[in-house]
């Protein structure tokens, strides 16, 4: 999960993962695991 958070932050231009609203954090993990979000 830590690595996934890092990749998401990179994909979002450095936006801190813990500043995503919980539903948006879930959405970004969903996107990453579905291959729709990549650094």
């Amino acid at each position, binding site marked *: 999960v830590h690595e996934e958070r890092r990749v998401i932050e990179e994909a979002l231009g450095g*936006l*801190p993962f813990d500043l995503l609203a919980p539903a948006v954090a879930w959405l970004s993990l969903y996107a990453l695991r579905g291959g729709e979000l990549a650094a």
Partner: protein
Amino acid sequence: VTFETSGARILMFSAYVAGASQSFGAEGAVALRTLFDAVRLLLAARPPELLVAPLTVLVPVGEGDADRIIAAHGTPSPLASADAVAHFIARRPDRGCLVAVAADGTYRVVNLMAPVDRAAIAEAVYHREGDVERIVAGTNDNAVPRVSTIAASNFAGPTFSSLDEALDRYGQQARESACEVLKRVWEGGVDGPRIVLVNRPESVMRDSLYQALSTGLRHVDVTREHTTDASKPVDIHVSWRSSLAEALIEVKWLGRSLAQSKGGIGYTEYSASRAQEGANQLADYLDRKRSSSANHLVLGYLVVFDARRRALTGPEDRLAKADALHFEHHELVFHPDHAQLRTDFKEPRRWFLRPRESCFLEAA
């Protein structure tokens, strides 16, 4: 449920981060983290679906003092926990509420006499009004679009909205008896004409709905025959593990069922007045629940399985289409209408159980 999940889309949901950074620099991010923790706790204690009036939560940025900031809006009540704030809101649900999070994690709360000027607060602010959530940081005021229709808030786990969605989804299936449990409700089976119900159909309907909610909802406990202190238990009880939210579901049916007794076989028939009985019963459960539970997070749902048919004599009948479908669009009228009279009673749902079309009597 489908999501569009590009990075640009996710950034759109998170525009407030840039706003907080622009207004407050690095201290803005620190305040946002505290704000999100507080909002998550508050919305678990008071689900967003129960917020009638605006809720505003602020976290001071940097060395800001919560007591001083909130004093500009009224005389604050110091409260130790999110549950205590939820009770405070429940006492006057029609009044807007401003909550300040103090440095020690406790809360200061005031009821607002007038809408709050969010930008003038100049701290990290969460604001919810109707279904719209905003994060405000000074002059940066960002609406936060909802990620999903299932969740009433991006900042809290879904509660009543997920139940609403699950009930509506189940209702679509129930119309065609497309559920392995509900199939058993028809005298003559689901492949028969579907015009007369089996003996005591309510337990089949309750079990079918129970199964659908148990498998379709996450992070909930669903139980049957939940005991209130009324003489009869309520059919289904739903409680959310991460929240104090609870739902009572009363199941009623209309139409004709077989009735077996020592005297032989007859019929039980329920008309629209049975739905009113269910509504009155549910209102009574809610009153009892409220008096036995201080948290006031209970909503009541009445669901009515409508199997009424016109000009029906027996289970082997073949009905004309007009008779079989006569009640399909007959909406129920309630007097008293509890859903209009009280805020904890959801609009009743009526699910018309369709007959089997291939069994209709051919038109002469």
